């Protein structure tokens, strides 16, 4: 099963390496990872997407908690939490006279943005959950994607209604 785990860690050199080392050393998987400073600059927030059966996920959570630089671990899937997750993709797509309008309308549908323009290419910024990003990539593919970069997932708990 896939789990999205949110970590609050000390913002110190070597912390990312400790976490990455824990995953590789114990044979766990990291599917995606994003890290950023929090409002309190002494702490960073990480979102890790990982996969494993219940026993492995339990170990991942416990092992992360055991790391001294890790302040808090929240496994969004293992609990009653409802959360929002988003990814960012930058997609460089070819445009010609025949495809320009189709590209623009797809961008419009997906509420993306053109952030760089050249004679033959648009660079498109799009955010959303994994499925949305996959869908726009799917539509762009036949039109000619030159390059693509996707961020790791960022996730946040929903407030209680």
């Amino acid at each position, binding site marked *: 099963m896939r789990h999205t785990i949110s970590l609050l860690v000390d913002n110190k050199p*070597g912390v990312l*390496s400790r976490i990455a080392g824990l995953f590789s050393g114990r044979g766990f998987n990291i599917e995606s990872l994003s890290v950023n400073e929090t409002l309190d600059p002494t702490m960073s927030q990480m979102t890790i997407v990982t996969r494993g059966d219940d026993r492995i996920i339990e170990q991942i959570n*416990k*092992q992360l908690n*055991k*790391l*001294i*630089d890790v*302040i808090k671990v929240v496994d969004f899937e293992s609990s009653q939490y409802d959360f929002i997750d988003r990814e960012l993709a930058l997609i460089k797509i070819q445009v010609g006279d025949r495809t320009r309008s189709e590209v623009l309308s797809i961008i419009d549908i997906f509420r993306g943005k053109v952030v760089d323009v050249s004679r033959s290419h648009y660079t498109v910024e799009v955010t959303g959950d994994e499925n949305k990003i996959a869908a726009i990539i799917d539509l762009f593919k036949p039109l000619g994607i030159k390059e693509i970069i996707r961020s790791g997932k960022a996730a946040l708990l929903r407030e209680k209604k």
Partner: protein
Amino acid sequence: MHKRIKAKGAHILLECLQREKVKVIFGYPGGSVLDVYNSLYEADINHILVRHEQGAVHAADGYARVTGDVGVCLVTSGPGATNTVTGLATANMDSIPVVVFTGQVPTKLIGNDAFQEADIVGITRPCTKHNYLVKDVKELPGVIKEAFYVARSGRQGPVLIDLPKDVVNQTFEFEYPEKTNMRGYKPTYKGNKRQILRAVDQIMHAKKPVVYAGGGVVSSNASRELYQLAKRMNIPVTMTLMGLGAFPGTDPLSLGMLGMHGTFRANMAVTNCDLLIAVGARFDDRVTGDLNTFAASAKIIHIDIDPTSISKNIKVDIPIVGDVKEILKEVLVCSKGKRVKKTERAQWLDEIEQWKSKHSLAYDMGAVIKPQFVIEKIYEMTGGECIISTEVGQNQMWTAQYFSFNKPRRLLTSGGLGTMGYGFPAAIGAQVAAPDTTVIDIAGDGSIQMNIQELATAVQYNLPVKVAILNNHCLGMVRQWQQLFYKERYAHSTFDMHPDFVKLAEAYGAVGLRATRPDEVEDVIQKALAVPKPVLMEFVVEQEECVYPMVPAGAPISNMLLL
């Protein structure tokens, strides 16, 4: 409150060590730590100059196991630091509190492939409990305070502090912090009351309970509580290698060690029990063998300070996270006045007794010395009143089987990592910690040569450590596996050349003794115990002797190869 002192980093370091009540440092100087050594010149801390940095960490580890306090090492950068890795990994696997200080090149040279530079913090990240690179002298007192706290609290373990040369040279007006404030590290000591009550209920109602005690009982100093529990409830106790001595080995309730080379009765009892009470143990593969058949029909209570140990290998029914001593005390309080039916436990103990009489530990005697005989003799002649360290392999398993440990902190052995070369330097550390106690390293002819250079250390400081080499002219355990599982193809496990161990001892200024026949054994041990000097005893033993019983790796532990 201590007053503020203005001093150089090197001096601050030693000042902090004194505040942590460090009495001895095991170390080896070099370029990057010259400033620290310069301050050490007049400091009131004992320093033991080892002959190899690996020896320093093992010695500090041995010191820690005997005293229960933190062992301290000081080494230089680069190779000095990388030589500590095996020692750190050993201490990490066995949860031993050690703090290692390594020198580092000056901060402005870090990352430049400078002379004697190694990224030791990167290298030791997975084999320490935690580690630090100090980049500013202002951080130094706080880091040291944290390091000692981390090493000795929770599940204990080794901590490394990397000290760039310029940092120990900076001057700073410092104050040693009274407390640490670590937001990501808060070990749990007190067990959950509800879980404890559930455990007590299970213990009262079980018909066939067994306690499975590990090194956690030793590190938590919970032997007395464990003894009270076992005695009051009449529960047999089996121990892991790390747990030996946590419960008296000669007590009728002791089943001895369990697992791959455990006793028949211990393995049968665990296989057939209806309640397994795991205390400070981690269900290691050498203990459990096949996980599906391990205590398969038992409810399992697991008491451990480390949550990651719980349900890692075996699904547990009643997990209790916390300090073993605190929890056992609670269990004793909560079960006070409750009685178990005597007859039911008696039946169970009777069943165990039958397993014992069916297969107990045994070996034949012949014209050649049997290694087990040497260990039994050492036990007999010391009355068990000594500290024993072991190397790794057959010597270690025979010691676990044939030496009855009645007190904790009497057996020093590399249980988790299985480090050959551990025993001798660990014995040196133990002798420093307990100068008036006899310390004996039970060694093999292979492992003793991995840190034989420490003979010089023992002689220099007049540490009268005794080494008993069970010389079978081969790597006995490797040979045993080749015999049993590799069709007797003895690939590179036999030593065709050995030094003359007696002469070697003499060359170092120690005493060398040799026994080649069974009737010489007693005499050699007697002489060794009588000399107030380091002694190397060589016992030329039967080469083909195997450690029995044995459970093949991964097999059910009831599936024992018996003699």
